[in-house]
């Protein structure tokens, strides 16, 4: 019988089943497959010579090309920096208000400012300047020290430290309640005569102004709007602020309100970028 199921007459392993109907033939792998294997092997050798590859006891082979991932990263970074260089050079020479006026530069700065803000500011002020309990919202138009670009830049550079004496010792419980109701009423449009009297005689207007709208020169809060420096804006919270003050060293339970200076933490360019970014969050004036 001619072996017509084995056209190439390939030798078999001698393993056969079903009276020789099933056999295991010794077929060679296809040529292209073997070629692929040898080419791959050759490539491995070439790769080992060119690139860092073989781990040694304390070191590794460096490869003749001297390639490292960190070098590649640095080269890429350099490329990006070259792209940014013309903008950065301009920003360095310009004032924050001039950058703001230039639409192309200000949108460039907004993007890099966002990264800086995330690194440096968002921990307290929240991402997007959304604010956090005890830390002011930067996206609204209520500013303690003023919302123009130069003031914002100054606030970042030099920092800010709020100050309000604690009235807990000098006011009776009744007076404290009255003045609290008066302050709450300012924003809600209701009047509280007894509280107004306390406000007057304690000299609150000396800092917060005759109209209680705050004085940006001193960083005193505007008491007539619904935005509170210390949230939530409830009577209890307002009363606490009046009783314990802000940064009053004589009261251990005083409110804390310190914005650190970034003059020695950031470059001037970075501060300009942040000022523009904060300005454009929604409350710049």
């Amino acid at each position, binding site marked *: 019988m001619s072996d017509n199921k084995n056209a190439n007459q390939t030798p078999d392993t001698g393993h056969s089943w*079903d009276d020789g109907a099933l056999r295991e033939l010794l077929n060679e792998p296809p040529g292209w497959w073997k070629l692929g294997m040898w080419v791959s092997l050759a490539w491995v050798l070439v790769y080992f010579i060119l690139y860092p590859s073989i781990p040694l006891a304390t070191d590794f082979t460096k490869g003749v090309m001297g390639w490292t991932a960190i070098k590649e990263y640095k080269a890429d970074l350099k490329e990006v920096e070259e792209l940014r260089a013309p903008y950065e050079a301009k920003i360095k020479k310009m004032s924050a208000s001039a950058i703001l006026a230039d639409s192309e530069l200000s949108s460039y700065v907004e993007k890099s400012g966002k990264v800086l803000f995330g690194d440096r500011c968002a921990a307290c002020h929240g991402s*997007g300047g959304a604010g956090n309990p005890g830390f002011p919202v930067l996206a*609204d138009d209520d500013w303690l020290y003023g919302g123009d670009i130069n003031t914002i830049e100054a606030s970042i550079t030099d920092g800010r430290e709020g100050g309000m004496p604690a009235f807990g010792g000098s006011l009776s419980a009744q007076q404290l309640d009255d003045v609290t109701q008066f302050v709450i009423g300012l924003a809600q449009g209701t009047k509280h005569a007894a509280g107004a009297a306390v406000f007057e005689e304690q000299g609150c207007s000396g800092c917060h102004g005759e109209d209680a709208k705050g004085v940006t020169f001193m960083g005193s809060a505007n008491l007539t709007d619904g935005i509170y420096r210390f949230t939530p804006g409830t009577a209890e919270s307002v009363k606490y602020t009046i009783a314990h003050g802000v940064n009053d060293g004589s009261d251990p339970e005083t409110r804390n309100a310190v914005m650190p200076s970034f003059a020695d933490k950031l470059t001037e360019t970075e501060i300009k970028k942040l000022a523009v970014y904060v300005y454009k969050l929604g409350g710049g004036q």
Partner: protein
Amino acid sequence: MSSKPENQNKTDHIDHEALYEDADYWHVNTGEETIHAKRMPGRFRTLKWWSASIWLIFFLGPYLRWDGHQAILFDIANRKFHIFDITILPQDVWLLAVVMLFFAMLLGAVTSVAGRVFCGYFCFQTVWTDIFTLLEEKLEGSPAQRARLDKAPWNARKIRIKVIKHFLWILIGLLTGISFTLWFADAYQMWESYLTLTAPLVAWVTVATFTVFTYIFAGFMREQVCLWLCPYCRIQGVMYDCETILPTYDVKRGEPRGKLKKNTDPQGRELGDCIDCKLCVAVCPTGVDIRHGQQEGCITCGLCLDACDSIMDKIHRPRGLISYISLDEINGKPKLKLFQRPRVLGFLAILVVSVAGMLWGVTHLGSLELSVIHERQPLYVIQSDGSIQNKYELKVLNKTDKPMDVDLTVTGTPYTPTIHGATMPWKVAPGDVGAFTVFLRIPGSEFKQERTTVVFTVSDVEDENVKAVYESMFFGPGH
């Protein structure tokens, strides 16, 4: 063949010879033998040349000019497709999906009607292999001469012929690669950059890849690509049904086959019409024997029909021993009309939908697009005067080729939002996206809800009808 034992126990005494009888003629060429197909003129040969010439568009298309620019240019770098007067931006890329659907359904429809028409007549693998083997025949001679040359020892003549052949093959591969790249950048500039060796790396890599694969696929692998590399081969096989017309050997007429003895009258012989001349096998580019019926190796190119018809003419028998015929027809069943075949109708219906989609898409490309991203951090801000402010980033795409000034209006809400932080009109460069930040404010006394819908509309200052609309949300504290 052993005779079957009486009272056989089916599980214990399987007749292995009978079981494997079917496999006797099985021969799967896995590339160890080169198919040297014979070329001969005929109806399907001519048809094949016409269908193959569609690939001239591939080579010549990039040089076509339109309005001072390349008529068809897939400008990937600038993310614009130019097709004559139409410019397609990435935002309209859904059109590409419709185009792909169209071709997929066309493949389905054609295959269910007439088999692997694509494989046999249009596929680049078939066409390029055809050209490569044509060159081979011009240089090396007939299939027999080619087989002899392959076995012959290396001498000056063999070396000369082989070097010229491989040079021409690589040249075709190179031209294929270059032509491909010309669709993606200005054709003339690309040629200049190739000739001055200043083309970008990606272009060189593309050309090299195409050259290598054209050379290997059409020069060496040939039918092997169809047999085990190409998915469409197998996909199309399942689109056949009993009504699909395919190159088919008429078994009833042809069998029993037998050699025609000299000086005998073919009309009166007791054997079938097949004289077992094996010309149908000799001309087959994939090396199959069509007389075994439809099989995976058959790309339905019709060349065996030409071959068989020429023999039938010579022995004065009617043509069509091998012909395009459906299984039903050969079994004497009535032939169904196209509209009676649900499969064809299904393909056609989707085909019509995709054509409609393409037409609608091309005529409704529009010239302005808008998308609005609502700032989520913070969702809203309460201003000093008690109003609620939301921040939005607007992206305005100008699809025209002129700069456009656009205005913004906000509607779609019972409240009266005011727009802040934007100086209208905005300028948007042609084919570009302008990003703008705006703030909407609604008085707090007015807005007590958690949110309301707002509809942003940007429109061309010069033509109000050119506009784009986007629905977004306005958020508030909700008390």
